[in-house]
Structures are given as C-alpha cells and as structure tokens.
C-alpha cells in the first residue's frame, strides 16, 4: 500500500484532492455505485430513529443508497462527483445536488439530521477534516431550536479506521495513516462481467465494510490485465479517538460513538 504524500498548503490540498479523490470517483462512478447497495447497520439505525417528517442532509451521498432507507423523512443528498449525484437523483422523493463538503449550499441551522458516511477521510489535512465536520454541524438545528428540549439536530459521521488488522487490508495501530488505496476498474468484457458477478459475494465476505475489489483476489483469468485500470484514492485512516477530537475541535459534542467493521463512527450535536 502506497503512502500518501500530501501537500500542506490549502491550494495544494485542493488540487491534491481533485486528482486523488474527486477525479477518481468521477471516473469509477458507475462501477463504484454497482457495489454500493447494502446499508451499513449503524447508519440504517440512525436514519430509522429520525422522527416522521424530519429533514436531513446526506453530505457525500454517493449513489444515494441511504436516501431511501426511511421513507418518512426527506433528505437532500450532495456529492462532489457529478456522475454519482446524477445516479442519486433516482431516489424519489429525495433530492441530489453536486456540492463540496467545504462549500455547502444549505442555509445554516436548518436540518434535523445529517449523515456523512465515508467522506471526511478523503480530506487531506487535519485542518480540512475539522472544517468538513464544522460544515456538517453548521447545517443542524442548534439545541435551542430542537422540538425536544435541548436536543437539536444530530449528525452521524463515519470514517475508515486505522485499526483493522483482521480486514483484507491489515492496517493496524502504528501504521501510516495517510494512504493511497487502489480501485480496480475492469474493462467491460462479457466474460469478465459474468465472472465478476459470481465473485462479488466472495469479495464482500472477505473485505472490510468498504468492500472494493482487490486486483489480486478478483482478477478473472480470462481478462487481460492490461485492459484493467487501477485508480488510487487518497484516504486518511482514523485512529481511535481521532474522530471525537475532530468533532470537539469543530465545535460539536459527541453523543455516542463506536467502532463498526473497520470504521469509526460518532453521533454529534452542536454545542449548547
């Protein structure tokens, strides 16, 4: 696994993420989307806990797989990738737009809930990750506005964990946190397609929650490797306690947090 060399100025970070995150998702959108259909349990629980008629934001909604989990809420999804946002618009009655986590086009203090699933770990500096969390918290109704006394809006944030020694990736405590993770896009060949279908389940079992394919495990023998294209995506792998620290630094309060299948997650509100 390649170690990421991230630039330390803001302009550089933007360009870096453009090349190593945004442009990759734009190109793998359709394939990526076809592997993303099963909601993660913690996210599903959070969405189903929302009151009927609640209004939410899904920041980095990808193909929109979480939009339809609870039919009694309304969600505006946004994604940095136009191709993914386009796929997400199919989830009636929800909405999907193209937007950047750091420049969200929503009025502040409007939403009952927000989710950020596997997004913040794509920002390449500590300051930008805190800024991303801040932008999510800002959308939430403040505690005084909430219908239930002192509640306010809640955000669920989910990031990839460094501590995942039992996963296929095998990262663990003490390893490098800024990494490049490959996504292998197969050339569309009928035979290769068929084989892939059969292997998808197998890959899901062994893989972490992310579940993407690795070249070594899933290379159909019939496919010529030269036709496959490998994209590298930048990730910052979160250490235990780091997500909570980012949330506190962003002016939020952690209500609940935990670890689920190679990921750290936290539910946060805005401070009183």
């Amino acid at each position, binding site marked *: 696994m390649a170690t990421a060399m991230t630039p330390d100025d803001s*302009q550089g970070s*933007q360009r870096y993420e453009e090349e190593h995150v945004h442009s990759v998702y734009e190109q793998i959108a359709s394939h990526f989307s076809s592997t993303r259909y099963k909601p993660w349990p913690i996210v599903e629980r959070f969405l189903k806990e929302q009151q*009927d*008629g609640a*209004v939410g*934001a899904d920041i980095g909604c990808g193909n929109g797989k979480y939009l339809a989990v609870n039919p*009694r809420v*309304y969600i*505006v999804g*946004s994604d*940095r990738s*136009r191709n993914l*946002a*386009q796929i997400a*618009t199919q989830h*009636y*009655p929800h*909405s*999907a*737009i*193209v*937007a*950047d986590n*750091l*420049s*969200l*086009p*929503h*009025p*502040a203090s*409007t*939403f009952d809930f927000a989710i950020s699933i596997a997004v913040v770990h794509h920002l390449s500096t500590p300051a930008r990750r805190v800024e991303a969390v801040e932008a999510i918290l800002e959308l939430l109704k403040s505690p005084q506005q909430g219908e239930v006394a002192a509640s306010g809006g809640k955000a669920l944030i989910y990031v990839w964990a460094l501590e995942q020694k039992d996963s296929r990736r095998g990262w663990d405590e003490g390893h490098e946190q800024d990494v490049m993770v490959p996504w292998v896009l197969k050339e569309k060949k009928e035979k290769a397609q068929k084989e892939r279908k059969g292997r998808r389940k197998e890959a899901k079992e062994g893989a972490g929650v992310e579940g993407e394919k690795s070249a070594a495990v899933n290379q159909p023998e019939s496919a010529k490797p030269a036709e496959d294209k490998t994209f590298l995506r930048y990730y910052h792998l979160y250490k235990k306690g780091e997500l909570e620290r980012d949330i506190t630094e962003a002016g939020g309060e952690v209500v609940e947090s935990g670890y689920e299948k190679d990921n750290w997650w936290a539910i946060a509100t805005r401070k009183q």
Partner: protein
Amino acid sequence: MKLLTLNFLTCAIKTCKTSPASFPLHPRDAELEIIESEINLPFLRNILPRLMWEEIRVIASELGLPSLPTTPPTREDLVEGASQAQATEQAEGEAVAEVEEVPSQTAKDLHRILLETGIKEGKLVCGNCAHEYKVMEGVANFLLPGHLV
C-alpha cells in the same frame, strides 16, 4: 431538480449565507420538466411546516407557474372533506380510521409544484452576489471556481 429542493438551498459562498438576499436562489433561463409521481399525503403533511411559503411563491411566480395562495395550506386542507371525516370519527371510533384519505385539490396542486415540477436545464442565481449555478440534466451544480472557495 424538483422545486422542493430550493426550499433547502442557498448560495455556496460562505459570506453570502448570512445575507437574507441569498435565499431563495432565483431560477433563470429555466427549462422545466414534469416527472409524474404518486401523491404521498403523509409526506406532504410532514413537509408542510418546513416550507418557506413566501419564498416558494416567489419562485413559482418567477417561473411563470400558476400563482400560489398568499397563505400556506393547513394540514387539514390537504385532505378531501377532512372536517367531515373528523366528526364521523368521533362518533364511530376506529371504524373510520380504515377509510382511505382522499387528497384534496390543494394537496394535488402542492404535489405538482413541489415534487413533480423540476428544473431540467437553466441556472440558479444568488440574489446577494449574483453568482450563477448551472442546472444540467436536472442536477444543480454548486462547485465553486477556485478563486471563490
């Protein structure tokens, strides 16, 4: 992009957000489309208290759509003969609960404008800084050019 979305959108530029002029965004050169869908009464009822009615009226009029009433509809307005149904319910108890609610014309109009009418192509313009956001194939794009981030 269905018009309901505009109820939750403003300018992506940070300095605009505090200015009242940045909400709502104003459609320009909009090509509208109608995507029909089944009316969902509970959904409409839920979303009703969240609607910025005055702003939605402004958007509808800017798009040349039939003008909306000056006051927002109430939850009761969404169901055909709601007051009557309530009276019967009191008399007969649970038996009435099984009767299917019939959406009123008000509900149908609201569904039409918020959920079925969408901007297919065009622009959304901030009333504060005049920045234009493009809508293409029904998807609005709020990515900012580098110098505005």
